[in-house]
């Protein structure tokens, strides 16, 4: 029946091996075309000049940074409720990717902000929220690393992820309250269509899709690695026991 059968590591690996080549290829196509189109085939913005082009990296990275955490939240819930190992390991595998994407988002933001606002860093709500998100990722990864027993580590990081999500959301609103900032509104949103004109919008969507597929491929790949590590560990424990 259902999706849950892929919670078995072996079945998951088999599926992952089948899906991964397509995911890598599609990610490469999406990112190459999206970035190439964005960088070379779109006009400069009338106010921001060519610096606008950094959104083709900045926005997708930020998008992954947030959604990686949301994916980890769901994976943590699945682990706590149904205790499927693949789920816990997928959350573990996604965290460093989310961290890197957060850093990319922050750096590209700074590079973009320098010519726009005349400064590398401003304590604008959106930037600040990402900085806080960065700290949450750090804490989550550090907790995984600190605990020896893998099941206990999965349990405790899941609880941290749940509680952390609530506080991350609280922080988001607290930061909004704390400062009304310089950052322009959302680049993409469904209800405000003409936020950003079509010329920029199409390559951006392609780039976001490419980054998302890249994230998927990376998570599949890294989860596979984590499963292999767990398997090695399980076999080693059995070996020690028999001698």
């Amino acid at each position, binding site marked *: 029946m259902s999706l849950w059968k892929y919670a078995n590591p072996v079945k998951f690996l088999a599926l992952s091996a089948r899906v991964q080549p397509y995911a890598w290829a599609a990610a490469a196509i999406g990112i190459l075309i999206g970035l190439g189109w964005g960088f070379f085939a779109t006009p400069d913005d009338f106010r921001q000049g060519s610096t606008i082009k950094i959104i083709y990296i900045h926005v997708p990275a930020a998008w992954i940074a947030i959604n990686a955490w949301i994916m980890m939240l769901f994976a943590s819930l699945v682990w706590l409720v149904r205790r499927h190992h693949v789920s816990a390991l997928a959350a573990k595998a996604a965290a460093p990717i989310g961290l890197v994407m957060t850093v990319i988002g922050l750096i590209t933001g700074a590079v973009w902000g320098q010519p726009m606002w005349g400064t590398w860093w401003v304590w604008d709500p959106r930037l600040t929220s990402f900085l*806080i998100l960065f*700290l*949450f990722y*750090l*804490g989550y990864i*550090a*907790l995984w690393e*600190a*605990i020896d027993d893998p099941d*206990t580590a999965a*349990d*405790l990081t899941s*609880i*941290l992820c*749940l*509680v*952390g999500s609530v*506080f991350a959301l*609280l*922080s988001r*609103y*607290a*930061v909004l*309250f*704390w400062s009304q900032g310089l950052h322009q509104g959302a680049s993409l949103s469904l209800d405000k269509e003409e936020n950003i004109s079509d010329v920029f919008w199409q390559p951006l969507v392609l780039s976001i899709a490419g980054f998302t597929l890249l994230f998927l491929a990376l998570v599949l790949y890294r989860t596979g690695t984590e499963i292999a590590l767990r398997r090695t560990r399980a076999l080693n424990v059995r070996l020690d026991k028999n001698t």
Partner: protein
Amino acid sequence: MRAMLIRDLRLAFRAGGGFGLGLAFFLILVVLVPFSVGPQGELLASIAPGVLWLGALLACLLSLDRLLALDFEDGTLDVLATAPLPLEAALAMKSLAHWITTGLPLVLAAPFLGILLNLPTQGFSWLVISLLLGTPALSMIGTFGAALTVGIKRGGLLMSLLVLPLYVPTLIFGAEAARRGVVGMDVQTPLFLLAGISLGAIALLPFAAAAALRMTIR
């Protein structure tokens, strides 16, 4: 539950319990601030609410790694986990004891340290009220952090890394309320939000902390 609270208070007040350590840290931190930013009264007055809030927060953090670690080492937590008192209640009481021995003294000391930082008179009452509403959240969130890291050797630093980001909303609303009190703006909104965070933390985090603790003991 009362026995739990009384025991923790008694332990804190006896020598070696670390009572007063947070307070001394708070004092030293505030004394160091003028050395680092200069003695100009105006500058100190404008940063005073924030500095006092940050100092209180760090002083709170200081005593957290002893909150559960000692009980973990001497087997108390094992026995508590099999006792009729729910672990959630025991942790809520431990966090209340932490607040009484750490948070409350900080609240009471804050006005005196405010004088050192040239805090304007109209700010004192709001500073105390905001700390009074916010420090329970600091203790409760800290208890949760301590429960997550109690089984880890030298988990103190890791606990700071986990707890400090969770302190962000409390710090923002608390310091904002104190700052607005000083400049005479409307303080109601941040105070309500601060109280909301404290109440939410007290209502929910004992369960998360107890769940984490059971997983560690297992």
